């Protein structure tokens, strides 16, 4: 359908992506990720994977839908809390717990999305921020979240009731939680694949059309609000999936997961990596994660550094790392 493509460049890009669907990048990255736990501290690697999924989910909305949500932590955090509660208190198996948390994030996404998409641009950012703050206070006061202490000691449990996810394998000097690692790898990779499919689908093209020129998309007969809401809910759901998985990895859900700092952090990951690129959020999430890890001893100077990276990105580097490379190579990544 030609009329889908309002912008000649996005038409070219979309066609290029369709024609050149190759499987080796997927297989190669899977192969690399499969050996990562033998080199990198596995829990750290799993956390990075969760944040990468979170950033990709966020980027689906910002990079492809043009909507800057400043409240995505509320989906991430809500799913984290509810998954933790379901596994720890109700004794659900990990996959059901994650499913439950993710589903709740989806419902929250519908509720917030319906309100937020009534405004655009800067207002959209402020509205999502304020509604996320509402969720933050709800989490602060709810009896099951443990207030300032958070929800601690969440067990890993058995996948499908069969495979013990807390099982570790001896590798040289170290104990590697390989079962959990591959479980998390499957989830985050699946999420990423879903986002990739969405972006390259007719739905994704309409979304890009709305981003480029909303009035024109509307006049072509697309029900813009429905597309935006669908993108919002999908983004919220995947952000929830990331949060739910993170809870399982670190065994903890806390207020910092729902705090607006987290929302800011995911914006930074996407901005730094390159918004509107598929790989950018992953690169951004890993960079920010490593930055946090390396600077952990510096206390509040971490905040200053994060702020500084924000300023540098906005002033000099608006395409982000991947976007800049892609621009130099004149192709999409």
């Amino acid at each position, binding site marked *: 359908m030609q009329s889908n493509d309002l912008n000649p460049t996005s038409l070219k890009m979309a066609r290029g992506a369709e024609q050149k669907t190759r499987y080796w990048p997927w297989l190669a990255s899977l192969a690399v990720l499969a050996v990562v736990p033998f080199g990198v501290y596995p829990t750290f690697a799993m956390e990075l994977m969760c944040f990468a999924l979170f950033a990709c989910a966020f980027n689906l909305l910002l990079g492809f839908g043009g909507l*800057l949500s*400043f409240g995505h932590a509320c989906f991430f955090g809500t799913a984290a809390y509810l998954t933790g509660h379901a596994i720890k208190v109700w004794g659900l198996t990990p996959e059901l717990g994650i499913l439950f948390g993710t589903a709740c994030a989806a419902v929250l996404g519908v509720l917030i999305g319906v*309100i*937020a998409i*009534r*405004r*655009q*641009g*800067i*207002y959209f*950012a*402020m*509205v999502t*921020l*304020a*509604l996320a*703050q*509402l969720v933050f*206070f*709800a989490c602060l*006061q709810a009896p099951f979240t443990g207030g300032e202490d958070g929800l601690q000691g969440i067990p890993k449990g058995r996948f499908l009731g069969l495979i013990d996810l807390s099982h570790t394998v001896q590798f040289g000097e170290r104990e590697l939680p390989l079962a959990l690692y591959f479980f998390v790898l499957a989830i985050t990779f699946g999420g990423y694949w879903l986002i990739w499919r969405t972006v390259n689908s007719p739905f994704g093209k309409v979304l890009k059309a709305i981003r480029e020129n909303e009035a024109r998309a509307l006049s072509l007969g697309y029900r813009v609000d429905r597309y935006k809401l669908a993108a919002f809910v999908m983004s919220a759901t995947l952000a929830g999936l990331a949060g739910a998985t993170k809870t399982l990895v670190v065994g903890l859900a806390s207020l910092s997961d729902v705090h*607006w700092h987290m929302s*800011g952090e995911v*914006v930074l990951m996407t*901005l730094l990596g390159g918004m509107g690129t598929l790989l950018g959020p992953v690169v951004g999430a890993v960079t920010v994660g490593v930055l946090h890890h390396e600077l952990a001893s510096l*206390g*509040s*100077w*971490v*905040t*200053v*550094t*994060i*702020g*500084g*990276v*924000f*300023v540098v*990105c*906005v*002033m000099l580097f*608006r395409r982000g790392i991947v976007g800049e490379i892609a621009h130099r190579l004149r192709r999409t990544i």
Partner: protein
Amino acid sequence: MDIPLQAILSQAMLGLNNGAFYALLSLGLAVIFGMLNVVNFAHGAFYMLGAFVALLGYDYLGQWLGNADMRLSFWAALLVAPIVVGLLGVIVEKTMLQRLYKVDHLYGLLLTFGLALIFEGVFTNYFNVAGEPYNAKPEVLEGAVNLGFMFFPKYRLFSIVLSLTVCFGVWYLIERTRLGSYLRAGTENPDVTRAFGIDVPKLRTFTYFLGVALAGLAGVVAAPIYSVSPKMGSDLIIIVFAVVVIGGMGSIMGAILTGLALGLLEGLVKVFYPPLANTVIFIVMALVLLWRPAGLFGKEA
């Protein structure tokens, strides 16, 4: 419900006090947004900086200069802090914000968010997050005054009166003076305004100075009531964003009235149903968005 009238009235007055701060802050945000199209995320940080200028001037300035008796009095701080904060704003506008007017407005928001993190982080490093008391409250404003129906702290009354005076002063400046007409013209159509020989970039710098100075002033006025802490602005700014969304950024008077009304509402909710006090403004925001997406005083875009 068996709540004494006394309690309701006193909470209402406290709420009105908070509302005056909301009004002062959302006014600054609205002025900046109107002229620059920037949502100033750093507004809370500038509010915090205003309070810190007052605190540092009173407690530390003398030590730094080697004369322990030298202190910046409260009255002086009311004048000095907004200017210091405003000048910092001018530096920010001249070196960074100015370059972002041509790109998507979201970048202005992101830049000021980054700046807010930097300011907050630096002060968190040197000062206690729990906050430091500001002891420079002038003696004239100690004690309480009898309002007939209740005794109300003099300082709080002073802060309400001062905030409202400044708010209406700014309203007068923008709506009734020549400079204000330039500002409004620059908001409406910068190109044509420029063609009439008015220096729009300078006007923008001045606007940012004005908006940020208002935040600094609010910080000084708040300092004797709340303790001065690096995080004092960051949660407040989100409430003020909600206030701005509710009021709509279309009108100056709208920002002032919405701020006052929501402070009052928050105070009353604190009496009748305390658990909702933190969130009532956000709930109102959600309802207003469903009913009137452009805000109470906003024009449909």
